[in-house]
């Protein structure tokens, strides 16, 4: 993969931007030209957080509908919402677990089932991989590492221009020492889950 547009979507507080920056550093260390975009502001109060990473020489940091080679979805509903960004033949790697928006909790709106993502993307995406990021992160030691689980899954199924080994190096190099072990565990669990999902 020489050029890739990667679209990140999640909910405020999930570490979407941290994951974006970690991938950007990985790209830079691999000698790839990189530009990345993020929207701050209202998002931190439980709203949607979207960010982008463009590898291989793009200049603009926005991704328009039909342009994303990869969608990394940190929350199930937000993954579904972001599907129009996907390019035909692209990858969708997402968290299979939900964070209820307030309208759902109030009973005014219905949370879509997991199958909605699979059904919508079927025949358009090259691959859709959904893994339970929060549960696996808890297994690794903290729910906060759910973002790293997702990165592990994405690298393992070949959605990223980086390997799990590349991400391992970045975690060791760029995360605070006390966070390294738990994130390496999370990365490995994500990678395993993605491989198991592909085999199934």
């Amino acid at each position, binding site marked *: 993969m020489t050029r890739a547009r990667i679209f990140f979507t999640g*909910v*405020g507080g999930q570490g979407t931007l941290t994951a*974006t*920056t970690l991938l*950007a*550093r990985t790209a*830079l260390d691999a000698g790839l*030209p*990189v*530009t*990345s*975009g*993020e*929207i*701050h*502001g*209202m*998002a*931190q*109060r*439980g*709203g*949607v957080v979207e960010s982008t990473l463009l590898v291989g020489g*793009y*200049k*603009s*940091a*926005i991704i*328009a*509908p*039909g*342009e994303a080679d990869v969608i990394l979805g940190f929350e199930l*509903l*937000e993954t*579904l*919402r972001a*599907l*129009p*960004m*996907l*390019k*035909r033949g692209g990858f969708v790697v997402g968290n299979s677990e939900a964070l*209820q*928006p*307030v*309208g*759902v*909790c*109030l*009973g005014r*709106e*219905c*949370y*879509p089932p997991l199958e*909605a993502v699979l059904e*919508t*993307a079927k025949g*358009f995406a090259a691959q859709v991989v959904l893994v339970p990021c929060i549960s696996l992160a808890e297994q690794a030691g903290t*729910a906060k590492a759910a973002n790293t689980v997702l990165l592990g899954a994405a690298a393992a199924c070949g959605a990223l221009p980086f390997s799990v080994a590349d991400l391992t190096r970045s975690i060791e190099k760029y995360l605070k020492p006390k966070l390294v072990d738990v994130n390496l565990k999370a990365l490995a669990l994500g990678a395993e889950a993605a491989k198991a999902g592909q085999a199934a």
Partner: protein
Amino acid sequence: MGKELLKTEGGDTLLLLGNEAIVRGTLEGGVRFVTCYPGTPSSEAPDTFFRLSQGAPYYFEYSVNEKVALEVAGGATLAGLPSLCTMKHVGVNVAADPLMTLAYVSAPGGLVLLSADDPGCHSSQNEQDNRIYARLGGLPCFEPATAQECKDMARDAMLLSRKLETPVLLRTTTRVNHVRGPVVTGDLPATPYEKPFVKDPAKYVPLPASARVMHKRLRAILDGLVAEADASPYNVESGAGELGFISSGVSRNYLSDVLEEEGLVGKVRLLELGMTYPLPENRIAAFLAACKKVLIVEELEPVLENEIRALAQTRGIEVEILGKSEHLPRLGEFSTANVRQAVRAFVGQPAAVVDALTVPGDLPRRPPNLCAGCPHRAAYYAVREVYGDTAVYSSDIGCYTLGFLPPFRAADFLLCMGSSISTGAGFARASGKPVVAFIGDSTFFHSGITGLIDAVAYKHDVLIVILDNRTTAMTGHQPNPGVDTTIFGENPNPVDLMALIRACGVEPVKVNPLNHKATLAALTELSKQTGPRVLVAEYPCPIHARRVGQAKKTLPARVAGDPAACLTVRDNLACPAFAMVDGQFTINAEQCDGCMFCVQLSPDLKPGKKEAK
């Protein structure tokens, strides 16, 4: 991003946010004095200066508002220090008064104004185009598009300002402030720049007689700058052919990617502008003369388009000029998608068909919401209980604007930062209806206090609720003059909000909004009175309190009785810690902040119990 931004030697490649790159760039330009009022998308620039400020080679302050920030920086440049003042686009409206005269009075030490515009209204009430302020105030203008350019142009804007002793505008947009990319650093200056002040009132005091002279001097500087803009390395021409494109700012990125993907690189003529005011007139004229047809690609207002049309007419150049009216929208952000359609139409290609998935239109929305444990939720709930729909709610700019959403619907109108008291006062005077005006502590200091003074002077009938969460939460928990503690330690001289209100002529009532009974009693009492009244609802923002280590550990609330009996509480508070699991109401212990407001509203909700060991 930490101390590497202060490193003296350059040559590193850093992965920087546009706003962080601006910090490095102004440091390379010798900045020694920084003022701001925070606001998205500008906030990370001052926040980075603040974080690095201990032992750094500059003075830093979060000023009380943008007008004050620009005036303080204006004083610093008069005293000879290279200065930077940062704000978001609407902040420049607040600072417009000093700005309009600043270039007359001049900037001996150098002064750069960062205006971060927000096309698309990502976090703003409008999408005004502040390139027009460059024209109005007579400020040379730079428009970076990448993180590297943010760094380079911030430096060069500072150097140009120092050289000409005139203020310079660094105009960015959201996508530029929040772009992240590699930046190669340069060296920091070895010797600090300064220019001792020499008294010369005719030069620095714009009495009418001297102002006329100053205006003439400013125009001469701007006229002289055309040659500089013509030669600027930020204004780059490439390609060949009869079809031409002129673009500036972030639009250059979209255009560049589209030309590449459409296979047009080299086959069309391209003029990319980074230094856009004064216009590089001779460069543009030569470009126009070489083209048959030109498309101007710029977000928001047709600023370049109109000026370039005028230039073609003045110079008698026959060329077709297209832009906003024909191909590109005047509203919202650009993207590769809409620039692609414009480029294809311009070169005579059929419109591109977008191959993309569609998703159901009725997906649950995820609007931003007041956080779990936010004291504003409790204040809104109590006000609603007392006034319901009988009052008109005047709102202001801050987290609490989110009270606009149901179930509170506590915002009926809003103009701008600091407007809730005065607009509410006007509405009350004109309609005779009860008005409740909400305003945050930071916003009150920013420009709400003048509204209070007016309300007292003219006995406006308005209940003012100051939602004092002890920080400027919306933009990232920056300190304001009233706070006791910042993330860097104690504030030795907090402004006493209660005493300030008292000095304005109102005896304020203070409550903890999380104490529902007391708040309700205070509001009920105030609702029976007339004239200007102030309720201070004070409780710290829980996120900020946790960050500065002031929050006490509390256990989450729990459903102790019948979950079905709590549904009214759910509907009336809409707290993000509430959840429905298998059709049953429950409280998510991970999300719950332990504020214990909800337990005051239902006997079926109880404080959490310590788990038995």
